[in-house]
């Protein structure tokens, strides 16, 4: 009789001390401007004015795709030749564009001036412009600024920069008692589900940041603790900590395991007793496990490589390893924040090849050598990799789809199994 060999016995856990391949070279990622696409849907009375070139305008139009269906709450103040001639003129021009915009759109309560590569290079001081415009347009409209430029930020870091700027304006909390701040843009449906779970546990004092309306900014005080719901918010976390908010260290709420661990950290901080926690989480956790299990049969043992894109790569790698039993080849991330990722890295197998930054051609060479069953990558690479015979998943879909929490665990797993299922179906 053959002995039963457990598939994953040889693996030791923990990537916290693993050497990271740190690369510099050509990158294939969006810049932080693209964060506007989900931020403008979340903060419903905010407007994002990119101060940039036609290329920036084209990027957010084509990346957003939704341009003009309804008048969008983002636009571009286009820097042209005249503005390059003198910063004073550029400032006048900016003031004029903002005044016109606010006169036409009375519904805007919060205006972000978003810096781009050209505005950074010509050193247009948007924070001073924001101060100046704030004086003109308060109390009706608050004006803030942040940089979404490609020389400063990649893709999801745009949200970090935006929320870090917004943190400065959070009012002081006057009421007593421990208070939770959940940081990071989540789909409304996810917020509602998490709210329900927290209330059932007995936690009533919590807020989501960013809020759905800029007029309902959460107040923070000495008894506020925060927990990140998205992994790319290092600067925002730092800002909050500098204001005395204590950050809870937790894995991210992806999959049945991640969600449980994330909630557990919160429950412990609020001294919720264990039985209560089990009562509240048992049913949804089981549902999540069941829905994930269906996809595991297809994905178990399949190998996967993540090319860097959103900084979600490490938590996602933990999910596909832990709950779908996939084999991790390379996990690339645009930027590795060891402290924030610590609870995630602990749970990755030590054999994982971690890489930070990008040298695109070298990374593609490694893919060729590895021949992964599935590659998670940016949109610009997906079709060329498919044409070479690889199976891919667009990482951007993982940013835009609600994937957090118990009820979304199955959907998250499906995002990985669908490309492989499709490949099996097609015969021609």
């Amino acid at each position, binding site marked *: 009789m053959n002995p039963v060999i457990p598939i994953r016995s040889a693996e030791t856990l923990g990537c916290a001390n693993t050497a990271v391949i740190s690369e510099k*070279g*050509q990158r294939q990622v969006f810049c932080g401007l693209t964060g506007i696409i989900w931020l403008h849907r979340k903060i419903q009375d905010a407007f994002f004015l990119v101060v940039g*070139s036609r290329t920036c305008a084209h990027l957010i139009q*084509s*990346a957003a795709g939704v341009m003009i269906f309804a008048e969008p709450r983002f636009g571009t103040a286009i820097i042209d030749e005249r503005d390059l001639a003198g910063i004073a003129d550029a400032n006048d021009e900016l003031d004029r564009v903002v005044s016109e915009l606010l006169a036409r759109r*009375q519904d805007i309560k919060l205006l972000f001036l978003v810096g781009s590569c050209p505005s950074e290079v010509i050193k247009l001081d948007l924070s001073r412009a924001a101060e100046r415009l704030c004086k003109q347009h308060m109390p009706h409209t608050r004006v803030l600024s942040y940089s979404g430029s490609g020389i*400063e930020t990649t893709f999801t870091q745009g949200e970090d920069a935006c929320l870090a700027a917004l943190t400065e304006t959070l009012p002081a909390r006057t009421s007593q008692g421990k208070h939770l701040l959940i940081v990071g843009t989540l789909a409304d449906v996810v917020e509602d589900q998490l709210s329900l779970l927290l209330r059932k546990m007995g936690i009533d004092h919590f807020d989501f940041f960013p809020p759905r309306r800029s007029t309902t900014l959460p107040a923070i005080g000495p008894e506020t603790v925060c927990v990140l719901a998205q992994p790319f918010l290092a600067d925002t976390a730092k800002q909050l900590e500098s204001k005395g908010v204590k950050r809870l260290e937790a894995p991210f709420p992806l999959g049945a395991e991640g969600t449980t661990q994330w909630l557990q950290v919160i429950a412990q901080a609020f001294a919720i007793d264990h039985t209560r926690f089990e009562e509240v989480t048992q049913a949804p956790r089981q549902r999540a496990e069941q829905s994930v299990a269906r996809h595991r049969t297809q994905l178990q043992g399949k190998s996967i490589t993540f090319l860097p894109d959103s900084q979600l790569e490490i938590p996602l790698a933990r999910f596909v390893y832990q709950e779908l039993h996939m084999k991790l080849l390379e996990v690339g991330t645009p930027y590795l924040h060891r402290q924030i990722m610590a609870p995630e890295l602990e749970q990755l197998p030590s054999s994982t090849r971690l890489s930070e930054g990008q040298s695109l051609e070298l990374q593609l060479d490694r893919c060729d050598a590895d021949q992964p069953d599935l590659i998670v990558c940016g949109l610009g690479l997906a079709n060329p990799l498919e044409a070479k015979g690889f199976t891919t998943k667009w990482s951007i879909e993982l940013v835009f789809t609600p994937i957090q929490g118990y009820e979304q665990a199955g959907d998250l797993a499906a995002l990985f199994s669908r490309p492989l299922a499709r490949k099996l179906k097609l015969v021609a």
Partner: protein
Amino acid sequence: MRVATAMTNVHYVLHAPQGDTYADLLFTMIERLPRRPPVTYSTFQARDLGGDTAQLFKEAVANAFDRFQPQAVLVGSSCTAELIQDDPGGLARALNLPVPVIPLELPAYQRKENWGASETFYQLVRNLVKPADKDLSAAPHKPSCNILGPTALGFRHRDDVREISQLLQALGIEVKVIAPLNASVEDIRKLAQADFNVVLYPEIANTTAQWLERQFNQPYTRTIPIGVSATREFIREVTSLSELPIPVGLEDDMHSVWYSRSVDSTYLTGKRVFLFGDATHVVAAARFASEEMGFEVVGLGTYSREFAREVREAAKKYQVEPLITDDYLAVEEQIKHLHPELILGTQMERHIAKRLNIPCAVISAPVHIQDFPARYAPQMGFEGANVLFDTWVHPLMMGLEEHLLGMFREDFEFHDGAAPSHLGSSRVAETPVTALREVAQTELPKPITAQPASSAWSIEAEKELGKIPFFVRGKARRNTERYALEQGLSTITVETLYDAKAHFSR
């Protein structure tokens, strides 16, 4: 990038920050190219701005050359790199690569995309082309031409090239080189060997064709073969350039002329159409719309300022005010004002059309993924005319159907809200009119200052309006409301409705 991506063995090194790599996905996702564009970005970051961005660029060029072994290297700056003034041309030349290095100066703050593509093509040709061998060109040979202008990400360029190549072949003309689409560096070198050039996309190829004419006495064609009449003219133009007779049987597969004359097409008479896009497609499409579809051109415009003169001339022909702008809000205003029954535009106008619930077909880049169809669908030549007939009629209600809906509008099946039967169920729930009103209500922000309120409809007038066939009801409603506003009437009565009708039918 459209020029480099179209070609087979060049590589473009672009001095650019990381966000600019999004341009790749226009090719791999919208055009569904199975390969990455041959572009390497230097991907500089803020921390590089201290001083070594130039070194970074040189490394990027050297690495790209080693890896891809191109036969020519293009180098240029993105809008941001332009500001840091690193001189990519000089830096790349310093590397002494064994292949031609062509620097591109594309001032992104002054010029736009079509101009950039045109300039890129021109610089490539200027740097690479070789004079034709005198003995060879003097010897008797089959008449020959090049096809100039098609690029990657162009609107149906692939199919137009196939259609026009077949046509030229049927005429007995040899096509020597097609460029830049699928051309190699070697092909570009041979451009001067042909007898003349066929310019399919003047926005991209005019500068190059003019230069080739000056340098090598190569004439080039002016007619854009979009539509049946224009295709016939094009045939006359190339046969006179090549001194060949026009063979019979060229028009055997052409159907649009008869389809346009069939009785079912009567309903197309005088349909009001608005056109916007690149100048070439707009001018050609306006002619086809007016002369071969029987539409009324109520407005046209372009974003190509370089071709404003041509568009103004066309506008004179249809006695309309041309719109030369790249401000989509201005285009939307104009469309709202003209309330056409069909829009022929770009992807931007499709968004506007969707919002205003007006049928729309695309005639020009920039385009959407669905404008790169899997099937063969040229815009040029006789087959192109067939395609235009189909795709422009498609978004409209078909003739017989439109009449039946008018005649049986009380019928449970043929009610107002019924969508065109070929457009599926997406529009079933709403009539164009209510949708328009909803859009207007949800999207107009509440003004703080009191604006003159629009006039209210009396119950009787609203009922009377319901008796008007729904496909003209939206127009009737707008006209009546405008009339009431102009007359300062607070309530719209049945009288107002008919007064307005009389007023506008003058």
